[in-house]
């Protein structure tokens, strides 16, 4: 369950940054992303899948959240 910092890049995409692993990837898709909640299964552009319990109301980015690996 790594701590992940989510921030927006210049193009407006969400970046998924894990400081400990030195990994920065763009988020390809988020399961739930509307005015009420944000989260669920998250897929990155490198194909890896992560999961976070939906947060309501949606968090303001940048923020640090704890994710689970999606394939568990």
């Amino acid at each position, binding site marked *: 369950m790594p701590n992940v*910092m989510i*921030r927006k890049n210049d193009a407006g995409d969400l970046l998924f*940054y894990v*400081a400990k692993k*030195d*990994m*920065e990837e763009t988020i390809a898709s988020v399961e739930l992303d509307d005015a009420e909640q944000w989260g669920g299964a998250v897929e990155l552009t*490198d194909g890896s899948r992560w999961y976070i319990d939906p947060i309501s109301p949606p968090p303001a980015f*940048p*923020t*640090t959240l704890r994710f689970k690996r999606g394939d568990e």
Partner: protein
Amino acid sequence: MSALTREETQALIQEVLEVYPEKAKKDRAKHLAVNDQSVEQSKKCITSNRKSLPGVMTVRGCAYAGSKGVVWGPIKDMIHISHGPVGCGAYSRAGRRNYYVGHTGVNTFGTMNFTSDFQEKDIVFGGDKKLDKLISEIEGLFPLSKGISIQSECPIGLIGDDIEAVAKKKSKELDKPIVPVRCEGFRGVSQSLGHHIANDAIRDWVIGNRDGDESFQVGPYDVAVIGDYNIGGDAWSSRILLEEMGLRVVAQWSGDGTLSEMELTPKVKLNLIHCYRSMNYISRHMEEKYGVPWMEYNFFGPTKIAESLRKIAAFFDETIQANAETVIAKYTAEYEAIIAKYRPRLEGKRVMLYVGGLRPRHVIGAYEDLGMEVVGTGYEFAHNDDYDRTIKEMGNATLLYDDITGYEFEEFVKKVKPDLIGSGIKEKYIFQKMGIPFRQMHSWDYSGPYHGYDGFAIFARDMDMTINNPCWKQMQAPWQQSAEQEAAPLAASA
């Protein structure tokens, strides 16, 4: 020699790898690559930030070097104690040429060395008492210091001294910030982790110091310059450009920087980072906690300067944007004259670079402005995100090498035959003795500044005087020269 094709470069890498034992070959192969601009993510072609192989010659430093030398060292009004044996502090003292203004030994301490000079008894009985005494002595001798940082050397972590407890106690006693930094040299694979640890120490001990204190008058055009280490005066030649644009530079981390500047940084409107590798962690933290956006910029060479000035201006209103154009226009004649003077002398020269964590990609633009071509580049301690940024800057089919070994670098140079190598002091004399012009790109070979328009003039002059130095034609003893070679200089002088 014309540029190598992709196949030739690949063959070159294979040839160089040939001498290694099977296991080492497999490992090193991952760190050498042929650049391909179509690759989006560098991790598909190159591995970085991994432990160096035992037995190969690496030029990497340690976590202590990253923290004391790079991030904390240039904070001029604090005293940085090299806590542990005397050598680490002595050998890292003042070699980096990060300039500052102030009276050394009175209110600034940049080129001084403070160490606890561990002896056997300190290892056996612990060094906390010694540290306590040392801090009191510092306070007595240098009362104008604004704070103290304790930079751990390897033994501190090995014997388990509690420097945090000492720091807390003394901090209360002296009413000054005392920052313990757990940057023992054995941590991590290179100095890169030292940068991260030092950034985390700043986050925990410095950044929040003025939360809730509104006495600082904030302006709409406040920026902080982060990760410009003022090598030979770089930060000053960058700062004037930003100020001419109408921005107010509140803080200069960590070239000519002070503790209070660092504390004020969360109040600025925009953080400008030059050295992404060593300072991105704290910028990310400030973005998250204080909502201060950050951007990378590059002040090497007129093309990149103009690009960066416009990018910075785009964050602000139209006045600043107009000012940015004025600044660029103001210096146009100046840099065009420099290009007109030096480009004919440098056109088509090929450069190989191997520096720390930022310059291998940042200086490419400056070389291209002079008509030179970078044919190989690599980093000592970069991570994947640095290579992501490098791939786009470099030409196709050029060499990329991560944590290159002494042997590989020499072999590449023998085959690629560059006209100039830019690397560190450890490589300098090997290549000069091989007869190849060399610039020391860590400390600008005792020259500088190289940032900004003023710096570009010095950069161009330095590259010219290195490459076109007549000494490179004198590499062969006169009695070993053939008849034609002997005739050539005579004809030229006639």
